[in-house]
């Protein structure tokens, strides 16, 4: 592609400029993607170098350190105690003792079972006293996996603490060498609300995130490589075990043999649901965005009365819990609901319109209805956001545009829209991703219905309005509870979201600096 200089560019006729812009955008994609890949490469390189540096540091500290430091490598906190920092030293020592006791009595067992996820399942055992067969429960795969992951986390935490212990010895030696005094326990406590205050503040939230988000996610990622489902629950009926990539193979295979009786393969079903998820997210995001902006502009216009009233009416929709409004609206549009009743009374239709059940054209009618009702749900949020931003656009821009004779449409496309898009770029991305995972609207309105006959045998029986996220939910609550499929879908959702965000972030002109305001 030929690159123009600024002067050449300005000489071009308008339509050529437009095409030039588009072409240069697409031409820049390969470079940008290349930069992205390099960036990822650099990240891994940095991680690798960082780890190597840690090893080196541990080694040199040992070689150069005094005897107190050397003993600390085996008895954590020894150096601290020997140098008078009793409280710190005892905490290190306590942690080491807890770790060793845990590993001997429990951790070792869980780790040793992790590769097999349990050896002996529940079995019928003859009970001579009562002369019957009773079930004897043995290994518990679920617990093995859970506590195995927990133990791994504990080991990582131990290694990290050990590393901190080593570094503290190094720092303490340096301080003593320079002739200063080490911190007392009292000073330690004071620094927790002062220069180390961030650690105090982050401790509780991070603990919650690690225990209730990170570990469950690690666990569920692992589940995708097992056969954990309703009939292999790991304790009561059958053990579950590692199956490698089998589940991914089934989910992404084009053969209909393993599709649970559906006439189409899992890959086709997954593709359909993914396509609808993306279409839905696109329409849900952009219809709301533009209509919400439009409504905000209407309310903000000079000479419009009762601005506050219009806004409050819209905000009311946000205030009322979605499960009430969505469930009610879904019943309004039901086949024997009030909307059909009105339309019949008016004589506009004879037969009820099946808003939620029509399977014509891959469920086109339910899909459109869902998108339209989502506009009803979404406009108020966008109206609020757009109002805030529109008020910030400098008024003199419009004044000078008017003096130059720009029509309202021109003002919109040349001032309002670019400004809005620039400010809300990141928001558009998050809202797109949020819509991809918009469980409430879909589940409360349709529950995924109408069922897709070609995919009815697939896990969780897929419907035409099902998003990936509602499909996942239906699988886990369904009769067969194929948790491994839910896990596979979750991982694939993550992959899609991650790819979209990475691409959008690297193509976006510039991310704003968070220090701009401070």
């Amino acid at each position: 592609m030929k690159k123009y200089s600024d002067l050449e560019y300005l000489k071009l006729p308008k339509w050529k400029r437009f095409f030039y812009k588009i072409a240069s955008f697409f031409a820049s994609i390969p470079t940008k993607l290349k930069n992205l890949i390099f960036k990822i490469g650099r990240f891994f390189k940095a991680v690798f170098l960082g780890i190597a540096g840690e090893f080196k540091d541990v080694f040199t500290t040992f070689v150069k350190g005094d005897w107190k430091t050397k003993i600390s490598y085996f008895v954590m906190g020894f150096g601290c105690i020997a140098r008078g920092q009793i409280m710190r030293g005892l905490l290190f020592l306590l942690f080491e003792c807890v770790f060793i006791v845990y590993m001997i009595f429990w951790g070792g067992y869980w780790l040793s079972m992790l590769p097999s996820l349990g050896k002996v399942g529940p079995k019928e055992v003859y009970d001579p006293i009562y002369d019957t067969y009773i079930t004897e429960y043995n290994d518990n795969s679920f617990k093995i996996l859970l506590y195995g992951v927990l133990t791994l986390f504990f080991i990582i935490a131990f290694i990290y603490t050990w590393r901190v212990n080593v570094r503290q010895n190094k720092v303490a030696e340096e301080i003593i060498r320079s002739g200063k005094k080490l911190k007392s326990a009292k000073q330690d406590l004071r620094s927790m609300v002062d220069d180390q205050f961030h650690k105090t503040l982050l401790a509780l939230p991070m603990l919650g995130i690690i225990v209730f988000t990170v570990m469950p996610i690690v666990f569920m990622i692992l589940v995708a490589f097992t056969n954990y489902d309703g009939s292999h629950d790991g304790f009561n009926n059958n053990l579950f075990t590692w199956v490698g990539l089998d589940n991914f193979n089934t989910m992404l295979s084009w053969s209909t043999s393993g599709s649970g009786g559906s006439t189409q393969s899992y890959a086709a079903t997954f593709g359909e649901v993914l396509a609808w998820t993306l279409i839905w997210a696109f329409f849900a995001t952009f219809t709301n965005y533009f209509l919400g902006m439009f409504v905000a502009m209407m309310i903000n216009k000079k000479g419009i009365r009762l601005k506050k009233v219009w806004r409050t009416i819209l905000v009311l929709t946000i205030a009322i819990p979605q499960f009430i409004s969505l469930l009610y609206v879904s019943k309004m549009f039901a086949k024997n609901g009030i909307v059909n009743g009105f339309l019949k009374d008016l004589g506009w239709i004879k037969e009820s319109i099946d808003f939620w059940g029509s399977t014509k054209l891959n469920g086109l009618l339910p899909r459109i209805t869902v998108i339209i009702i989502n506009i009803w749900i979404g406009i108020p949020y966008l109206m609020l956001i757009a109002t805030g931003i529109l008020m910030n656009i400098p008024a003199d821009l419009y004044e000078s545009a008017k003096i130059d004779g720009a029509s309202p449409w021109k003002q919109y496309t040349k001032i309002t829209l670019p400004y809005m898009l620039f400010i809300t770029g990141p928001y558009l991305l998050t809202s797109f991703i949020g819509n991809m995972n918009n469980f409430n609207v879909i589940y409360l309105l349709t529950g995924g219905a109408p069922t897709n006959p070609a995919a009815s045998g697939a896990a969780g029986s897929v419907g035409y309005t099902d998003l990936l996220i509602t499909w996942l939910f239906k699988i886990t609550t369904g009769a067969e509870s194929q948790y491994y499929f839910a896990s596979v879908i979750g991982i694939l959702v993550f992959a899609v979201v991650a790819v979209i965000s990475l691409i959008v972030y690297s193509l976006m002109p510039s991310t704003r600096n968070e220090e701009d305001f401070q």
Partner: protein
Amino acid sequence: MKKENSIQKQHMGMKASQLISNTVIHVLLVIMSVIWLVPFVFILLQSFRTETNETGTMVTWMVDYVIPKKWGFDNYINLWNSGFFRWYFNTFIVALITAALQTIIVLCMSYTLSRFRFKMRKPLMKFMLILGMFPGMLTMIILYRVLKDLGMTQANALPGLVLVYVASSGMGYYVSKGFFDTIPKSLDEAARVDGASRFKVLTKIILPMSKPIVIYTILTAFMGPWGDFVLARYIAFGDTAGYNVAVGMYQWLTLDQINKCYTMFCAGGVVVAIPVALLFIFLQKYYVEGVTGGAVKG
């Protein structure tokens, strides 16, 4: 003279077109308001519908009119006699405790990430961004099993629910971090020079200035559990004693119950919606500030 006339004419023309466009917009706004309010008005009206059919049972579902033929409070009385107020109480307690704890956690997180500069800050934020890309629903399977082992599901679902709502709430720090970013750092520095500790800076200087964001955080933290369906349904599954209003009322609209419970659902909806709607209208200012700030500062 002639020129002046034409300017005046132009002015008049603009005024007329202004008038027309403003009228059109007013009409549009009225139509919109009607569309937005219709479902809520319908719910309110149908909650008072008490007419019976030939067999003497109450007509609830499948009618093509909204204005009740016979008015009465029967639906609200039925509500009282069903398990509804147990659910209502459940929801309220959970929402209240969650709001309190979650606000503390979110503020800790966002304040730290906004004001402190430490080595792990950027990696931490990126890490949480990536964590957020996993569908949260995925973790429910294991959380349910673990809570079940701890005895915090079904009838005893309330502590379990609070735990799950609060534990991961630190990840929703974006909006309040955006707010803290706008408070000038020179304020902190001045106080630090005068010898105040970081803790003092937070409690004596920043918090008093942060009333809007604190209220916004409390409000959203309360609204989350108040309207939550998925998690509550998962954790309290199968035992009505542990339901919250959303899960309890959802089953009233299932196929086998809708004929009996439709108007009761409307009455329940009114009872659930009124307190939050009032709360919302009173605190609207803070909510709007939070939402716009959050979107602008990302």
